[in-house]
C-alpha cells in the first residue's frame, strides 16, 4: 500500500484528494491536523469510503519548527512515505493584515513559513530513501503581488520560490517536488468571496487535477488549467497598465 501523508487534512482540497486516493485503491493515510476532533471526522469518512485503507490521525502545532520536526520524524519512523501533500492555509483578509501586525505575522507564518518547514522536514528522509513526492499547495496569488491580497500572496510566493529551489536541488534524485497553484476554489475558506459573486472552480475538479499532477510528478500544476494562461498575462502586464487595474 502507498503511504500518503496529508498536512492540513481538514482543508477541503486535501479532503477531496484523500477521497480520490482511497477510491482508486486502498492506501495507508496519515492525516495531520490542528484540531483532533475535526481530523477524526475526516478519517471516519475515509474509512467508510475505503474499509481496506489504513487511516491514521495526528495533531501538530503548525508554526513551531521544533513541533513540526517532531511530527515529521514520528511519521517517517512509522512507515516510509510515498507522497506528502502539504495543504494547509488560511485566507487572511488583506485589510486585517494591514491594520494589525500580529494578524499579518500569523498569516505569513501559516501560509508561508509553515509549509516550507514541513517540506524541508520531509525532504531529508525522502532523499535518504531516494523515493517519493512532495506536493505543496501554493496559489496563483503567489505569482504577482496585488493590492487586494498581497500578504497572502507574498506567503504563497515564498512557497513558490522555495519549491523551485528544491526542485533544482533534487533534480538528480528520484524525489519529486510538485507545486500546485489553484485559482479561486469553492471551499469554506472562500465562502465570503463566493458570496460576493466571484466565479470559482469546484473543489472536486481541483482535487482531480492535484491527484493527477502528483501522479505524473509535474513540477507546476495550475488548476483549473486556464489559470496558467491568465497568470501568464497578469505577470507580463506592464506596471503602468497593472497599476490601473482594480484587482
Amino acid at each position, binding site marked *: 500500500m502507498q503511504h500518503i501523508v496529508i498536512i492540513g487534512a481538514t482543508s*477541503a482540497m486535501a479532503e477531496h484528494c484523500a477521497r480520490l486516493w482511497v477510491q482508486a485503491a486502498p492506501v495507508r493515510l496519515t492525516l495531520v491536523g490542528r484540531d483532533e*476532533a*475535526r481530523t477524526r*471526522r*475526516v478519517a*471516519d*469518512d475515509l474509512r*467508510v*469510503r475505503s*474499509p481496506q485503507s489504513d487511516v491514521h490521525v495526528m495533531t501538530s502545532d503548525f508554526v513551531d519548527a521544533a513541533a513540526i520536526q517532531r511530527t515529521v520524524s514520528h511519521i517517517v519512523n512509522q512507515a516510509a512515505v510515498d507522497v506528502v501533500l502539504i495543504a494547509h492555509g488560511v485566507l487572511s483578509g488583506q485589510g486585517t493584515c494591514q491594520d494589525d501586525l500580529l494578524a499579518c505575522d500569523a498569516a505569513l507564518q501559516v501560509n508561508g513559513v509553515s509549509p516550507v518547514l514541513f517540506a524541508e522536514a520531509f525532504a531529508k528522509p525522502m532523499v535518504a530513501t531516494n523515493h517519493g513526492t512532495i506536493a505543496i499547495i501554493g496559489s496563483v496569488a503567489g505569482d504577482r503581488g496585488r493590492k487586494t491580497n498581497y500578504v497572502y500572496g507574498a506567503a504563497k510566493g515564498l512557497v513558490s520560490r522555495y519549491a523551485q529551489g528544491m526542485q533544482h536541488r533534487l533534480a538528480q534524485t528520484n524525489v519529486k517536488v510538485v507545486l500546485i497553484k489553484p485559482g479561486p476554489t469553492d471551499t*469554506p475558506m472562500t*465562502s465570503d468571496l*463566493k*458570496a460576493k*459573486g466571484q466565479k470559482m472552480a469546484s473543489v472536486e475538479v481541483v482535487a482531480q487535477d492535484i491527484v493527477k499532477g502528483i501522479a505524473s510528478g509535474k513540477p507546476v500544476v495550475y488548476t483549473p488549467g486556464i489559470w496558467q494562461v491568465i497568470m501568464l498575462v497578469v505577470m507580463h502586464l506592464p506596471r503602468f497598465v497593472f497599476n490601473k487595474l482594480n484587482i
Partner: protein
Amino acid sequence: MKPVSAWGRLSNDLHDVHVLTDRAHVAPVLAAHRPGLAFGNGRSYGDVCLNPHGHLWHTTGLNKFMAFDDATGRLVCEAGVLLRDIQRLFVPRGWMLPVTPGTQLITVGGAIANDVHGKNHHAVGSFGDHVLGVSLARTTGEVLSLDWTQTPALMSATLGGLGLTGVIVTAELQLRRVGSPWLRTETLPYQGLTEFFELADASEHDWEHTVSWIDCLAGQTARGIFMRANPMSAPQAAAMPSLKAVLAAHQQKTQSQPLRMPFVPPLSLVNGLSLKPFNMAYYELQKLKSGFDVAHYEPFSYPLDNLQDWNRMYGPRGFYQYQSVVPREGGQLAVQAMLDAIAASGEGSFLAVLKTFGNREAKGMLSFPEPGVTLALDFPNRGQRTLQLMDRLDAIVREAKGRLYMAKDARMPRDLFEAGYPRLSEFAAHRDAGISSAMSRRLMGV
C-alpha cells in the same frame, strides 16, 4: 447577501448564506444567525427551500460519511451527503438506498425534509420508511437525537417537516441489498387511463418499479408509455456477459463531464411550437423501445441527471411543477379532468408523469405520499395564464380530496394546503421558532 433560486427559477432573491461545514458547529451557527432555513441542493422547485432577504444555512458542506455496518446495511452520514455519492459508493458493495426520487442530486437532509418517494412506493414506501434516526440541531443551540421509539412525535414531525423543526445534522439510514446495478425493464405503450390503471394494478405485485409518462396534450385519448422494472440478481446479471462492456462504457461516461445547458435562452424553449412535436416524438421513440430490456439503474432512474442545468431551458421566467395525489376512488375521473383542463388551456407540459402510490400511509405528519394516483406536470411560467390553469387544477384536486406536493409547489392557496394536510395543527407544536421559509409564511402564516 447572495441571489438564490430554487429549481424552478421563479425567483432569484438575495439571501444571507451561511455555509455549514463542520457538524460540531451547526448549532452555534444557527443560534447566531436566526431566523433562518436549511438549504440542501436546491432541487425543490418552489419556495420550500427559500427564505428571501433572510438567513439560509447551506448544508452541502456537511458531506461526510460516519459509519457503515456491512452486516446490517446501516449507514450513518451527515445530512448534506448527496444520494448519488451514497449510491456510487455502495452499489458496487452490494447495497443501495431503498428509495430515491427522479434525481439523485439531492441531499439526505432534503430527502428527509420532503419525505421523497420513488418509482417503487408501492413496494417499499417513501424515504422516511428507511430512516432509523436523525440528529437535529435547533436554533436554541441544542442538538437532539431522534428515533422512532424515544421521540416518535418529533421524528414524525421532522420527516416531511420541510426543514421547519430544526436542521438535520446526521442521519442513520437502512440500506438494502442489491445483487447488481442492473434492472430488467419492460416498456408498454397504453391508450387511455383505463388501460393505465389496468397496467398499474397488474404490475403492483410482480414489479418493484413502475412509472408512466403521459402525453397530456392528447386529451381524451391520453396515450402514454408505461415502464416497469425489477432489480437483477447477481446470477442473472452474470448470465449476461455483455453487460460488463455496457457497465464499463457507462462508467466512462459518468466520469467525464456531463452535458450542460450552456446559457439561459431569452425565451422558454418549451412552448406551443416545440411541445406537441416533442411529446409526439417522445411517444413514438419510447414506443419503439417497447418490450423487455436491461438497463443500468442510473439512466433508468435519473434520466435527466446527465444534462446539468436542464431547468434553464424554460427561459428566464422559470417554470412551475404541479404534482398532486388523489385517492384511487374517483382518481381516474380526477386525472382525466386535469388532462382535459390542460388540453383545453393549450398550456402544454413537457413530461407529465403518472404513477400510483401503494396502499400505505406515510410516517411523516406532512408527508406527501398517500394511497392513490399521482400526476406531476411542468408548466413554463407564462404569468397569469399559467396561474389560472393551476387554479382550475386546484379545484379538481380539492374536489377529489387530494393534496399537492410541497417540494414542487410555489403558489397553492392556504385552504387547499389545510384541506390536504389534516395533521397540520399537530405539526405546528413541533416547529422551531427560529426557522421560517417563504413557504411556511405563505401557507402557515409564520
